[in-house]
């Protein structure tokens, strides 16, 4: 059955899954919608987990996308605490861990990604803290009061946000970063350096080019760590933020094309035209990239889900949004717009010393990405410039007096 009465089944209740529901109903979809998620809670927002929620706690209900009423009013069948175990593509049916079989006309896969585990002996594995779900953070919060020394493995956004929060709480924090600089995948060397200095100034001890050689458990419940640099460290809490892998299990088992992610086309369709996919688990050819990529961000999840909903509602929508993401560390708000891979020139506006600056990244004369530190207005303007394909001249980019929004009005 096609059209707006199609039965839609969504696997995964993160940002993409929720957005798909909301956009389907707003787009006039009247058919049944079912949402499946292994987490027994109502779908909730992830970004505050490593930021405000970790620091202040707060009522977990404030993280919900919507209250239970919404799903009732919108006639969405929730299967929470239940996993999808198999896709029967031939019969267009989804098998669930509770034994149910859900028939679908359109299946939407938004499974997200799985934490990459730190390799440690089996008896310590379940003592390592990760930062992904609300339960992970609740577990950390429950231990935090009794903890003095924290070692974080991983120098990406998650590890560094956690480090900043832990410093605010007065903990001793050391971060082990395998690579030569922090946030290597996502920002320029100059920005890595700037933030490294800020972490140092806030008392966070970051060790670059350092991994974990061995970990052992102490009698008092803490850990002894030997680093690859030959140093010994002790800590009460060991947190790993060393990346994620796309959750492609269900898709692969069903024979859908996967290549470091579930492969989708511009309309977010998998190799089976009745099955869509969105979010962290998806690999696709973004129009701003020259190869197939995967993007782990709220924006990507939300915008792809909107495209899927529009397509199910009968439009011909394609995904071409400018990627953007952000990170909060101490008093610094880092915002990245565009895809910076392949840049060959950086133009800076504002001084590093002021703690507020913008980096315009160019490939030739084309602006491909903009990274800002505490300049959110530049970030918003940059997203519009990138979407419109407008590249300011290098001198314009550097000039504080050149209003970025005015370049849009041409």
């Amino acid at each position, binding site marked *: 059955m096609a059209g707006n009465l199609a039965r839609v089944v969504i696997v995964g209740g993160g940002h993409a899954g929720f957005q798909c529901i909301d956009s389907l109903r707003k787009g006039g979809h009247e058919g049944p919608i079912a949402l499946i998620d292994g987490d027994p809670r109502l779908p909730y927002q992830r*970004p505050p987990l490593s930021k405000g929620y970790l620091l202040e706690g707060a009522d977990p209900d404030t993280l919900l996308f919507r209250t239970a009423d919404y799903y009732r009013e919108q006639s969405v069948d929730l299967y929470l605490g239940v996993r999808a175990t198999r896709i029967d593509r031939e019969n267009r049916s989804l098998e669930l861990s509770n034994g149910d079989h859900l028939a679908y006309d359109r299946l939407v896969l938004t499974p997200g990604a799985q934490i990459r585990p730190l390799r440690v002996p089996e008896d310590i594995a379940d003592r390592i803290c990760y930062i992904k779900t609300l339960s992970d953070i609740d577990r950390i919060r429950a231990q935090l009061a009794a903890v003095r020394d924290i070692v974080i493995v991983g120098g990406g956004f998650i590890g560094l946000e956690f480090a900043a929060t832990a410093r605010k709480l007065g903990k001793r924090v050391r971060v082990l970063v395998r690579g030569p600089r922090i946030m290597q995948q996502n920002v320029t060397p100059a920005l890595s350096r700037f933030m490294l200095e800020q972490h140092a100034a806030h008392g966070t001890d970051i060790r670059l080019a350092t991994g974990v050689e061995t970990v052992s458990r102490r009698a008092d419940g803490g850990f002894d760590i030997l680093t690859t640099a030959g140093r010994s460290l002790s800590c009460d809490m060991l947190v790993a933020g060393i990346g994620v892998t796309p959750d492609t299990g269900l898709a692969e088992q069903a024979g859908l094309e996967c290549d470091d992610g579930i492969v989708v086309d511009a309309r977010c369709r998998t190799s089976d035209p009745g099955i869509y996919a969105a979010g962290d688990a998806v690999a696709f050819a973004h129009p701003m990239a020259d190869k197939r990529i995967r993007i782990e961000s709220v924006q990507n999840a939300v915008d792809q889900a909107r495209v899927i909903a529009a397509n199910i509602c009968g439009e011909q929508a394609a995904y071409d949004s400018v990627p953007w993401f952000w990170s909060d560390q101490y008093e610094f708000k880092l915002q990245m717009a565009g895809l910076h891979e392949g840049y060959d020139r950086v133009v800076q506006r504002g001084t590093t010393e002021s703690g507020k600056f913008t980096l315009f990244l160019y490939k030739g004369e084309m602006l491909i990405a903009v990274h800002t530190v505490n300049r*959110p*207005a530049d*970030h918003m303007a940059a997203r519009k410039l990138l979407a419109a394909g407008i590249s300011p001249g290098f001198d314009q980019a550097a000039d504080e007096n050149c209003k970025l929004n005015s370049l849009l009005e041409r």
Partner: protein
Amino acid sequence: MPKVIYVDFQGNRSELEIANGMTLMQGAVMNGIEGIEGECSGSCACATCHCYVDEAYLGHLPEMTENENELLEGTIGERLANSRLSCQIRMAAELDGIVVHLPEEQ
């Protein structure tokens, strides 16, 4: 629980009770009030929860951060003297009955 009244650009009023400590953005989004998006989940990074706060309550609001001030420069709806980002307004007893007007577009 204290009340907040959201008025959309066409004048439609929605009255909600929201818990102390919850932001006006969260209250709106969670209850499906049209006209507030909150793309960044309330971290003051996106300016999609712009609202106009009724004058009577302006004095009770927390002071604006530099980030919020800058973001308000880039909103789609025109910035007025009573423009705020609703993710930066936490519900409190003294805000009971607060009226916020929402722009046509975020």
